[in-house]
């Protein structure tokens, strides 16, 4: 059993005053804010996650790799088991009981995801295998149809490789050009530079909502409005935002919003692409096969309506249903409460780590999600990762699939602690102690 202290009970909370309005918390200091989400009971939440009880080589697991993949609570595990035990069949096909049940549950999951991001229409929620798949869908379905030689695609230095490489493939194929929004030393997008990149050839903006490598929360609502003023569509990579912030695609007015299930307490192999219905209607299918057609003959095939046009073959039905259960779970806790708790963890960790000699924080944006990327003087991140693992602490080390960010900060790699709502202040203390012991080994 892990020794934990709750956020509320911690006597050691002395986090600095940080901007928090973006996370929906309006108080200026964290102490009053902590009281305002008194119902947030991290101990009760932790009890829902069987994996958090694990011991790693005799040490309690301190799981701080949530930006890579978050853990699954018991209700979601149970949902998977129930589906496989009593509801499984292929969907949209047969007339028998199990097929009807599976279809109904799959489509119910779609509506849960629709509500989770406040999409106007369930037809605008496409199940994909994940964010990468969703972005590739937009590249093939929208990019290959509407982006031509000489057209320009605006991306940012912060992008994950999954929102770079598909567009490079498209550029290579079509002769389109990629323009890149630079960042400042804090890891924030230079919005003036972004706006200066627009011209009559600009066709699409691809931007991540929250940086996986640095935690920067980008001002995407403002960026989307600017793009729309210039008649340009915007694809948002929301993989790191959906698990940590309340996402409202109507408020953002984004054209596409992509995210993954496994970062959202759901299973791997499932993700979502939200797209505006009128756009999806105009797009060409990504994959061809069963379920995405209305009729097939060797002379002519008629495609199905959205969203089915984009869901060729048998989808990951169990994963989709479990993801529906996961967003129910998160919504019951409340995304604003989750964001506030995670921000308290970030503030507490940041306050300690900025004081540590030999520790360099990479990414110090004013608006940040609960991600701390750092380097230790004289210690390679992979050594940090292996030594922290010996203390039961799971962090990510490497380039985080964001090599342009690493290049910008002139580091080959960083160590990254990324928090979820089930992490505790005691786990932050464990991380800080772990970093000190790594420094001692290399002293």
């Amino acid at each position, binding site marked *: 059993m892990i020794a934990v202290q709750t956020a509320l009970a911690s006597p050691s909370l002395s986090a600095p005053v940080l901007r928090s309005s973006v996370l929906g918390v309006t108080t200026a200091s964290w102490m009053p804010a902590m009281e305002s989400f008194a119902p947030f009971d991290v101990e009760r939440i932790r009890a829902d996650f069987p994996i958090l009880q694990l011991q790693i*080589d005799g040490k309690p697991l301190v799981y701080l790799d949530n930006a890579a993949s978050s853990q699954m609570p018991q209700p979601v595990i149970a949902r998977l088991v129930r589906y496989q035990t009593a509801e499984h069949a292929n969907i949209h096909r047969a007339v028998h009981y199990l097929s009807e049940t599976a279809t109904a549950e799959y489509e119910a999951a779609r509506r849960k995801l629709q509500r989770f991001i406040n999409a106007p229409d369930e037809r605008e929620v496409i199940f994909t295998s994940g964010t990468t798949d969703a972005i590739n869908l937009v590249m093939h379905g929208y990019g290959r149809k509407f982006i031509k030689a000489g057209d320009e695609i605006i991306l940012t230095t912060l992008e994950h490789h999954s929102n770079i490489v598909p567009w490079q493939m498209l550029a290579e194929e079509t002769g389109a050009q990629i323009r890149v929004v630079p960042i400042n030393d804090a890891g924030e997008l230079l919005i003036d530079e972004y706006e200066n990149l627009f011209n009559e050839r600009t066709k699409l903006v691809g931007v991540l909502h929250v940086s996986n490598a640095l935690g920067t929360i980008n001002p995407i609502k403002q960026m989307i409005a600017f793009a729309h003023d210039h008649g340009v569509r915007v694809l948002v990579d929301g993989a790191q935002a959906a698990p940590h912030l309340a996402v409202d695609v109507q408020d953002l007015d984004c054209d596409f919003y992509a995210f993954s299930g496994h970062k959202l307490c759901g299973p791997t192999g499932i993700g979502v692409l939200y797209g505006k219905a009128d756009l999806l209607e105009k797009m060409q299918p990504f994959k061809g096969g069963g379920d995405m057609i209305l009729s097939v003959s060797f002379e002519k095939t008629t495609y199905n309506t959205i969203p089915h046009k984009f869901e060729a073959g048998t989808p990951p039905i169990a994963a989709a249903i479990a993801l529906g259960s996961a967003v129910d779970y998160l919504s019951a806790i409340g995304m604003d409460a989750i964001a506030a708790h995670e921000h308290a963890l970030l503030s507490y960790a940041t306050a300690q780590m900025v004081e540590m000699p030999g520790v360099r924080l990479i990414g110090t944006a004013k608006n940040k999600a609960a991600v701390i990327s750092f380097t230790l003087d004289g210690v390679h991140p992979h050594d940090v990762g292996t030594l922290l693992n*010996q203390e039961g602490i799971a962090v990510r080390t490497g380039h*985080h699939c964001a090599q342009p960010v690493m290049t910008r900060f002139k580091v080959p*790699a960083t160590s990254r602690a990324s928090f979820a709502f089930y992490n505790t202040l005691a786990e932050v203390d464990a991380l800080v102690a772990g970093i000190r012991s790594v420094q001692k080994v290399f002293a």
Partner: protein
Amino acid sequence: MANYKALYQEVILDHNKKPRNYGTLENASHHAVGHNPLCGDHISVALNLDGESVCAIAFEGESCAICKASASMMTVAVKGKTHSDAEILIQEFLAMATGKLDLNSPNHIGRLAVFAGVCDLPTRVKCAILPWHTLHAAFNSVASASTEADADPMHAPIGNA
């Protein structure tokens, strides 16, 4: 469980802090650069062969402690050895790092046995073997080595996000 605790031993930390034969080699007869694309680490190995014998060897690069110590101890181990003896050691080290060497049977591993524990850490095996791949490439005048090469015994994608 894993004996990786033994990995960060004094001898490895010492070679990381004070790497032997670190730097460049004037007029090297053989040279190669090795990359580990998973972490961006790279290491270059240069050597001079006097007939069959390695009379001088040096390495440099940017890497983690495991890789740097492995490279440092490798240069110490192969200096003065013949090309063919060095190749035998390369094969034994690769076998040890991937858990395929019986350390109780006759071998030439010696002090390099401190790296035996790396076989329990699949993601770190590449760190330990990169210098050895690079040395092998240098002997064979291959311009660059990579732990992602087809010949890599640990070739396996390692996840991301």
